[in-house]
């Protein structure tokens, strides 16, 4: 919501200054029309106090509601209404307070149309200023919102790129290649080619294009081959997919974080050989993939919910299917299992 202009001290000072000048002018005019100056000042103070209150009221009111359509009509009605009420109150109140001059009541009645005009214009002027002020505030806010949204989008994009490239994996792999060049150039060459295929596959994947399980598993195999070169004898993998699941489709790069997580968890939590098991089964209109890794129940920090690294997958599944039950994890017998279910949309 926009800030009221009266929230700023500067504007309160302007408003008060303007009001004083206006009240002074008002009493000067009355004095000119041969009223005593006490009467002139009293009249001016009361009329302008009420007018000021009306201005403040309409300005605050506009802070909460400004119509989108028929604005002129809306504002016009408010101005008429307020100046009418203001005039009625004046007509009743002023003679009660000012009793000194007998001719005053007559003068008041004669001056009512002029007063009405001035009140209407003053309130109208306040409405205009307020509307200008609030639209400017709205615009500023929407610009800010837009800038924020763009910044967020940029950050998300950068984060995605960073994720896709997986610098840690990439640099460690390059380091392995560097080591192989000296001792086993043939293997170095093979690893460079695998790495290129993997990176190309990663870059090719688009957010909105689903891929078949076969394609995704092929991509994962490349990744696992590279990891096996890095970790040598410690890492072995088993992929077991029912052949009829092969053509089923899934969102791209959904399995990758699960497997990465399993490798990280498996390799960094134990010191022995690690077998990562990937299984794919198809149930009624559902593709089920499980990823298993061993862990050490003695030292593993029991992970709440779905654990680290998996929250992104969870979120993605929710955005795609509006379901939170598609990613499950459980640990038993020193084996940690992550199970992901992908509904097959037809």
């Amino acid at each position, binding site marked *: 919501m926009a800030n009221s202009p009266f929230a700023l001290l500067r504007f309160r000072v302007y408003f008060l200054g303007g009001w004083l000048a206006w009240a002074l002018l008002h009493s000067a005019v009355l004095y000119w029309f041969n009223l005593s100056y006490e009467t002139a000042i009293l009249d001016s103070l009361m009329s302008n106090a009420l007018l000021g209150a009306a201005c403040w009221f309409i300005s605050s009111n506009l802070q909460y509601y400004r119509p989108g359509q028929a604005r002129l009509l809306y504002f016009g009605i408010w101005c008429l209404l307020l100046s009418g009420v203001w005039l009625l109150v004046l007509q009743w109140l002023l003679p009660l307070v000012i009793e000194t001059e007998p001719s005053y009541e007559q003068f008041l009645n004669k001056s009512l149309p002029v007063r009405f005009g001035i009140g209407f214009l003053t309130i109208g002027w306040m409405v205009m200023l307020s509307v200008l002020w609030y639209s400017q505030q709205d615009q500023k806010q929407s610009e800010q919102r837009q800038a924020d949204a763009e910044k967020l989008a940029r950050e998300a994009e950068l984060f995605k790129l960073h994720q896709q490239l997986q610098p840690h994996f990439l640099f*460690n792999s390059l380091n392995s290649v560097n*080591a192989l060049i000296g001792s086993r150039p043939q293997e170095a060459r093979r690893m460079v080619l695998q790495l290129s295929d993997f990176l190309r596959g990663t870059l090719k994947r688009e957010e909105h294009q689903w891929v078949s399980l076969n394609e995704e598993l092929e991509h994962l195999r490349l990744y696992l081959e590279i990891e096996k070169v890095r970790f040598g004898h410690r890492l072995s993998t088993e992929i077991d997919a029912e052949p009829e699941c092969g053509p089923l489709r899934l969102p791209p790069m959904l399995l990758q974080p699960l497997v990465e997580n399993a490798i990280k968890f498996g390799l*960094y939590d134990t010191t022995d050989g690690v077998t990562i098991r990937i299984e794919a089964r198809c149930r009624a209109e559902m593709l089920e993939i499980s990823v298993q890794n061993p862990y050490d129940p003695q030292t593993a920090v029991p992970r709440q919910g779905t654990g680290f690294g998996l929250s992104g997958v969870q979120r993605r599944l929710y955005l795609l299917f509006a379901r939170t039950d598609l990613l499950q994890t459980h640990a038993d017998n020193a084996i940690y299992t992550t199970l992901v279910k992908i509904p097959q949309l037809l």
Partner: protein
Amino acid sequence: MKTILIDDEPLARSLVREYLEAFPHIQIVEECNDGFEGLKAVTQHQPDLIFLDVQMPKINGFEMLELLDQPPAVIFTTAFDEFAIKAFEAHAIDYLLKPFSQERFNKAVEKWQQQKDQAELIKNTQALLQTASTAPDRQDRIVVKIGTKIRIIPEPDILFLEADDDYIKVYTPDGAFLKSKTMSYFENSLDPKKFIRVHRSYMLQIGQITRIEPYEKDSHVAILKNGAKVPVSRSGYAKLKQVLGL
């Protein structure tokens, strides 16, 4: 001159081994796959220099260094992003960002050779450990040594910490363990959402509190799930109230 290579990737070690051929007077006395092996080897051989990876099984490079009474000179070999390494840039002899060249490697070793003053080196390594706690990776566990055994205390098992001279006593359901660190170290390294320093000498895990009772004038005592009582100072109580939203 003795050195030990500690890295969980065999190829990464073989690269360092290859590069080290340019320095025939430096002998590799052992190669280790993880921090446990590293710890044992360093204690046994007392090397002059170690090449250490950061991300390793069980305990990482920093945790391993923490457990050494007399850490040797260290050259880190890591694929960590540069920003992460900034934190300890000033103190390690050098760090080699994987992949690195023979020239870059030589520079690091020469730098070490030029730093003759060993006392200076050890001071550097210790300063490094202090700053390592401010690295972006927060700790979710504490690694302690009991005799020759290493124990990893995961975050949920940490009940509270008590300062005791130059040591911190880490209280767990299985008893208390000593760690030569300061309170402010743990204030930096443990998750501030879960751990709060409630007293000059005490820090506790918020989730372990069952109730807080007044205790003498101006102070309180927090009673944990296992019945332990932890003193809470006046400012600690104010912090607790804020965190618990009282």
